[in-house]
Every structure is written in structure tokens, then in C-alpha cells.
């Protein structure tokens, strides 16, 4: 499969098809595995890395799931192409920085993606829309079972799967979910909630994982501990905590609408106004407003399809996507202009927020005209 084909068709988890993704956008599970008897990628000599790749790649490409898959060595991709894949969460930032001897194999539907010679020999991930950690685990576990029949993994009875970094020992499994938490942010409860999550030993990160800032009110929650508990126990705790956070968010949304409907309407109306009419929009500002527009979609201010539209835009306005879109290197100012252009054209047919839909309770028949229509 060609790069352009891969990129043209967004995955089901990107559009949220067939899942409740109002608060939990996606669930992701990744497994780290290494081969026995050969150095880990970071310590291997170039020749050893190439040999590992020659062993792994046929096995991975032969997986039933990987029929007609996208399979490329990273040094055959341009830096923009690699960055686009990072922005789509198909490969990691660390993987994009690698070249010779590393490869990515991505299922046609993009729900399973496998990185070869990342920090570990194999990093396999599965992404599903909504809160579906078990489903994601099952998909990646099945891939792991098939590969384990042909490859001898580095495994120790006491330490489990052996990984380059001891933080991944044991199960080698990291489960995570991407949550959209605008109401917890607006009501200043986010710090408290995230602190509680941290206390249980789970990690909270921004949009692009480790060391990234939280943008667009998007947060990633994942397990930190990989050793000493079974996959099932880890995922069950993670799923429980994530659904609790999602509940808090749902309650916060309801309370915001009850306590301060004008503030909510104002924020969403302004976001709509800026996105529809801005001519230059920096990434951070766009993400902030798209987050509010998405919230508006969930609350019924906009038709349901607007949520998928926001999710698609979250990816499309990232720097590498903009460069791919325009086919050349862009200065930051040019990026802001093209970003605004894309947002405007995508939102062209989106009607102004339907404020009446949320003001119906306890209001007289003719609500005040807020002057947005």
C-alpha cells in the first residue's frame, strides 16, 4: 500500500465511527517485544539491526491482519511523511527519528500498527474508538500470539518480557485512552481529578504522549506499572479509572449548563465565530476553539456530525499535515494562513450554534435573541 493511500483514508478510530466517543476518543494498547539472542535496537550495530529487520518484517507482513498492509522502511520516507504518521498516532516520535534498519507496518484499516526496531525490536499497537481497552488488547494480543509461534522472544520467568527500558518489563504493555475534558478544565476541577489519577499510579499526559503539553483539553491516561500484575488486572483498573474520569466530565458538563449557561454559550459561540472567520490561526488557538466546538457538538449546539468534523480537523491542522496539504515547506505565518483556510472551508456549512436547544428548561417560550444567528 502506498503512503498516499494510507493517508487518504482515515481510520475508523479517527472518525469515531460506531462508538461512543463523546468523552473518551480512543483507546490504545501497545505491547513491547524483543528477540532473544540479539542486542536491542539502541545498542545493536547497524548490521545487527538490519538482520533483525530481515527476520521480523516477513513474519509481520505475513500476519493475516496485514494483508495489503502499508509496509515501509523509515529511511524510504521523507521527514514530512514520517511526521504525518506521528500526527496520526501511527508511529511514535522516537520512531520517526530513526532511519535505516527501522520500519513500520500498518494494517489497511489502521487499527493495528507495528513498529520494527523502535526502542524495542517490536512495538505493536491497536487503537479503537471510544473506551474499548479490552477490544484493543485482544487485537494486539492475537498478533502477538501468531508472532510468538515463529519468533523466540526475550523472556524471563521472573521479569517477563525483557525490554530495552526497565519501565516496560513484565507485560511490556501500555494501555492508554485519549480523553476530551473541557468541562473539567472550565470548572477548574481538572487539577484535582488528574492528581487523583496520578495517585493511583496512572500517568497523565498531553496529546502526543510523554513530555507533551495538553492542548485542546485532550489528555492521555495510561498505566505506568507493567510488572507484577497481569494484563487483565492492569486494563481493568485503567478502564475503571478512565470511566470514572469520564463520568466526572459528564457531570461537570451538566453542572456547567445548569449553573452558568451564558458562559458556556459564550465560549462555544466565540469559538464558532473565530473558527469560521479567522484568516490567520496558530495551532494552539485552533485546538482550543475546536475543543469548544466539539463540546458544543456533544451538547447538542451543533448537529452530531460536527464532532467527527472536529476530530478530523484536530489532525488536519497539525504542521506536517499542512505541509503535505500544500506540498511544500511553510513558514509559521504561511502555516497559520493555510490552517485558517482549511478550518473555514471545513466548517463552511456548519450552522451557528443552536442556543435554544439547551435553554429550553425553565425558560419562557421565546428565549432572548443572543444575536448569533
Amino acid at each position, binding site marked *: 500500500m502506498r503512503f498516499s493511500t494510507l493517508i487518504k483514508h482515515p481510520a475508523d478510530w479517527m472518525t469515531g465511527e460506531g462508538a461512543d466517543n463523546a468523552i473518551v476518543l480512543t483507546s490504545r494498547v501497545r505491547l513491547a517485544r524483543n528477540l532473544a539472542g540479539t542486542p536491542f535496537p539502541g545498542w545493536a550495530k547497524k548490521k545487527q539491526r538490519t538482520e533483525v529487520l530481515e527476520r521480523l518484517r516477513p513474519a509481520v507482513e505475513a500476519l493475516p491482519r496485514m494483508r495489503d498492509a502499508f509496509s515501509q522502511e523509515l529511511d524510504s520516507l521523507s521527514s514530512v511523511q514520517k511526521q504525518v504518521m506521528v500526527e496520526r498516532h501511527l508511529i511514535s516520535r522516537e520512531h520517526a527519528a530513526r532511519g535505516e534498519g527501522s520500519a513500520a507496518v500498518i494494517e489497511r484499516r489502521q487499527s493495528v500498527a507495528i513498529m520494527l526496531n523502535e526502542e524495542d525490536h517490536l512495538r505493536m499497537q491497536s487503537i479503537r474508538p471510544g473506551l474499548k481497552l479490552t477490544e484493543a488488547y485482544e487485537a494486539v494480543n492475537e498478533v502477538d500470539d501468531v508472532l510468538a509461534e515463529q519468533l523466540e522472544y526475550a523472556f524471563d520467568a521472573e521479569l517477563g518480557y525483557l525490554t530495552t527500558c*526497565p519501565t516496560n518489563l513484565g507485560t511490556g504493555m501500555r494501555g492508554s485512552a485519549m480523553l476530551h475534558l473541557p468541562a473539567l478544565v472550565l470548572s477548574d476541577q481538572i487539577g484535582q481529578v488528574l492528581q487523583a489519577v496520578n495517585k493511583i499510579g496512572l500517568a497523565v499526559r498531553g496529546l502526543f504522549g510523554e513530555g507533551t503539553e495538553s492542548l485542546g483539553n485532550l489528555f492521555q491516561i495510561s498505566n505506568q506499572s507493567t510488572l507484577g500484575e497481569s494484563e487483565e488486572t492492569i486494563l481493568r483498573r485503567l478502564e475503571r479509572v478512565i470511566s470514572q474520569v469520564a463520568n466526572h466530565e459528564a457531570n461537570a458538563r451538566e453542572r456547567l449548563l445548569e449553573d452558568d449557561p451564558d458562559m458556556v454559550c459564550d465560549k462555544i459561540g466565540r469559538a464558532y465565530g473565530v473558527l469560521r472567520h479567522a484568516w490567520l490561526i496558530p495551532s494552539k488557538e485552533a485546538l482550543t476553539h475546536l475543543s469548544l466546538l466539539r463540546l458544543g457538538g456533544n451538547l447538542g449546539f451543533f448537529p452530531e456530525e460536527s464532532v467527527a468534523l472536529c476530530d478530523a480537523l484536530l489532525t488536519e491542522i497539525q504542521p506536517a499535515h499542512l505541509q503535505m496539504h500544500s506540498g511544500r515547506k511553510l513558514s509559521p505565518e504561511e502555516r497559520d494562513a493555510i490552517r485558517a483556510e482549511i478550518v473555514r472551508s471545513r466548517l463552511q456549512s456548519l450552522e451557528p450554534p443552536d442556543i435554544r436547544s439547551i435553554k429550553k428548561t425553565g425558560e419562557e417560550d421565546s428565549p432572548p435573541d443572543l444575536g448569533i444567528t
Partner: protein
Amino acid sequence: MNCDNCGKPAKVHLTQLVGGQVKKIALCNECAKQKGVTDPTGFALADMLLGGSQAKPSLVPATPGKDARRCADCGFTLEDLKRIRRFGCGTCYQTFREEVNQMIRGMHKGTSHCGKVPDGLIEMQMRQKRLDELRGRLEQAVSAENYEEAAGLRDEIRRLESEVANAD
């Protein structure tokens, strides 16, 4: 971040190990030049942090020989481990077991694996164990001139060996 010396925006960031502790310092260009940071040998962070006249931090390398352990499979050393906090290969986890145990304490919910075990691998390891055992018994049987038992053991070993070959 601002210069620790004069408060102007910092351009030079230094990290130095002083008496086993990590000390970080930020300096603007002027102060960095003044303190001789451009010439690393002429600069002692300790002097600045501790007021100038303290003893120089010891930069003597660890005594050779003591820490010279090296992974037999991949050549990874204890020094490498201390530097990158990652391992070179699966065997390193045996070579540096003590250090591993120290590192994982507090890192995870437990210290021993109770999750998935690769099917084939355990079978392979069990078969290998059984083969080792049978070979030991065969040797004993032969030296005890118990040929009947030895023949039975030999057949059993051949059968297992062919299974291993087929599995490959």
C-alpha cells in the same frame, strides 16, 4: 529561565555531578564567559554554588576492575547502564541482575511477572529442561552398564530432538 548569577535570560545550561548530587545551573552569555564556562576545565560549578573556595569536586573515575562487568552476549557494561539507564540485550538482565532489582524497586507494582507467557517459549524451555535431564540419566545408565534403560532413554531423546527440529 533566568541566569542564576544576574537574572538576565539564560542561554547556557549546565548540569554537573557534585558529591553524588546533580546540580543544575543556568547562566546568561556574559556570566558564562566571565565564569569561564566556555572552557570546561576552568569552570567548577561547585565553586559557584558553594561560594568559591571549596575543594574541587572529585572527578576521579571509578576504580577500574571493580565495575568492569560486561555482558557476555552484547558487551554492554555497567558504565553504559549507569549512563543510559537502559539495557543492551536480554542477557544483560542476567548479567546485571542486582542493578535490575534495585532499579525496578518502586518502579512497578511488583517485582515478578504474573502476566502473559509466550506459549511456544515455555514449551521450548520445558523440552530443553527435559532433554538435559534425559541426557544426564543416559550418561548414568551407560556408566552403570544398564544398557536396556540406556536404549530406552536414547529413543526418548531422539524423539524429543526431532520435535525440536520440526518446531524450527
